[in-house]
C-alpha cells in the first residue's frame, strides 16, 4: 500500500484534521511504515473465517422505558466553550 500526499490530504479531511506541510510528510512516512507492517496479514487465508466485531455475544439489550432524572441542563452546559441561554453556541453554519 503506497501512501501518497493526496491520500494523506483526503484522510485528514475525513478526520477533520488540519496538518502542516511538515506534518503531512511525517504522516506519510509513518503511516506508510505502519501499513507496511500491517501488510503481514496478507499472508493469511481468511476467506472462510467470520468477522468478530465484539467478543461477547450481546444483541439488542432491552429495558423498560422508564422516566429517570438526567443530567441537569446547567451541568450539561457547564463545560461548553460557548453557550447561549440553554444552548451550545457555534460559529455560523449556513453561509450567506
Amino acid at each position, binding site marked *: 500500500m503506497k501512501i501518497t500526499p493526496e*491520500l*494523506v490530504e*483526503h*484522510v*485528514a479531511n*475525513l*478526520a*477533520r*484534521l*488540519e*496538518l502542516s506541510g511538515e*506534518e503531512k510528510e511525517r*504522516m506519510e512516512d*509513518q*503511516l506508510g*511504515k*505502519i501499513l507496511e*507492517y*500491517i*501488510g*503481514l*496479514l496478507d499472508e*493469511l487465508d*481468511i476467506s472462510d*473465517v*467470520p*468477522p*468478530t*466485531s*465484539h*467478543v*461477547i455475544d*450481546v444483541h439488542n*439489550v432491552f*429495558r423498560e422505558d422508564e422516566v429517570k432524572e438526567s*443530567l441537569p441542563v446547567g*451541568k*450539561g452546559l*457547564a*463545560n*461548553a*466553550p*460557548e453557550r447561549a441561554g440553554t444552548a*451550545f453556541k*457555534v*460559529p*455560523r*453554519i449556513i*453561509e450567506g
Partner: protein
Amino acid sequence: MKLYNKTIHDLHEDLKEGRVSSTRITEDVFQRIDDVDDQVRAYLTLTRESAMESADEADERYRKGDFLGQLDGIPMAVKDIFMTDGVKTTCGSKILENFIAPYDGTVVAKVKDSGAVITGKVNMDEFAMGSSNENSGFFPTHNPWNTDMVPGGSSGGSASSVAAGEAICALGTDTGGSIRQPASHCGVVGMKPTYGRVSRYGVIAFASSLDQVGPLTRDVRDCAILLKAIAGHDPADSTSAKIPVPDYPSLLTGDVEGMRVGLPEEYFGEGLDPEVEELVRAAVTILEKRGMKPVPISLPSTRYAVATYYIIAPAEASSNLARYDGVRYGVRYPEAKGLMEMYKKTRSQGFGVEVQRRIMLGTFALSAGYYDAYYGKAQRVRTMIRREMDEAFSKVDVLLAPTAPTAAFPIGDRVDDPLRMYLSDVFTIPVNIAGVAGISVPCGLSSEGLPVGVQLIGPSFKEETLLNVAYAYEQERGEFPECPL
C-alpha cells in the same frame, strides 16, 4: 514499614484494630506525594481536601464498627480517564485540559461506595494511546525505580503512584496492555479482567471493543479485593456481563496442585530480552514447585496480533474521538470563521501527535475503498486469534508468558519510532483481542535493577482461577524488593 508502602489488607487490619486511622494513612500518603512527586510526576490533579473528608468519614465508621469493607479508608489513585464528579478529568489531553466531569463513572462511584479515599487523578498517555506515558499532553511520568526510565503506559501514573507509595492502590484501563505493561515496568500487580467483567460507563472511550478497567496493586490479594469492588453488571453499560461476581479474596487458597500451565512458544521467541526470558522461565519453576504441570502450547496467530490491533483500535478510536469537535466540551479554537475551520483547528491543536496518527490510521482503515482490505480483514483475524486462545484453554488452566519483551526503557528512546513503540505490547495485545483476562505479577529484577513481570492469562470470567495461580506464585516467590526511591 511505612504506612504508605503497606497493602490494602494489612492497612484494613490496622484500621479494624484501631492501630491507625484513615486520616493518618491519608496524611502519610500525601506527605509521600509532597516528598517524591516532583521526581515521579504521577499526579495531574490532587484531591487533598475531599480525600481528608473521606478519610474522616471512614474513621467514623471504623469507630462505630460499621466499616464498608476492606477498601474503607484506603487511599487510591484514579487514572485521569475516569469521569470523577466535580474533578478535572483530562484523559491526558490538552483538548480536555479544562474539563470538569459532571458525574461519577460507575467504577468511581463503586470505589467511593466502598469507602476508598480518592487521592487524585494520575497521568496517562493521551486518550490511553501509548506505552510509555510520554504521550501525555502535559508531562511524562517517570519510573520510580529509576527516574530516567519510562513507567510504561498508558496507565503509567497508576503504576508509578502505587510503586512509589503515592497511593496504596490505583485504577487503570487496559486496551492493549495499558495496565499490565506499566505494572511490569513498575514492579506492581496489574490485572486486565475479561471484557465485560467491569463497567465502562464513565470511562472515556478509546477502543470500545477492547477497553477494560482493572486494578493496580501491591500484591495479588489487594488485586482480588479491588476487582471484587469494581466488577459486575451495570445497566448503564450494555456490554457489561450479567454474570455473578465471585468473592475473589476468599477464593485465594494458593492450592494449584495438578493444574496445567501452558507455555505458548510464540511468546518466547524473537525480540524477547534474554534476561526477561530467564526471569519468566524461573516463574514456571516456581509454579511447578506448587504442583502445576507445564504444557507446551502453540498459538501461531500471535504474530498477527499487533497488526490486527493497529487496525481495530485506531478504527474504533477514530470514531470515538469524533466527539471532540469543540462544540459541547473541551477546548475550542477561538477565532474560527466557520464550522469546518473550528472543527479542524480545534482538533489539530487539541490532539497530540500520536492521537492524530491513530485517528488518521483508523479513518483510513474505515474509509471507502479500504474498509474490506483493512478493517474487515482485521475482524476476521481477530476471530482466528480468539479461536486459538479458546482452544488453548481446553488444554490448560492458564497460560504463562512475559508481560513485556524488555524491562522499562529510557525516556525518549522510542518516541520517534511509533512502530517500535507499538511492539512493546506484543505479548499483551492478544489478550484484549480475544477478550480474555490477564494479570502481570512482578517476577524479578533485571541486572539494571528494573522490575520484570510475568503474565498469566486465563479464560473468560475465570478471574478467580487466574488470581489463585498468581497468588500461589507470589507465595512461593516470597517478598519482592521494595522500590529504592
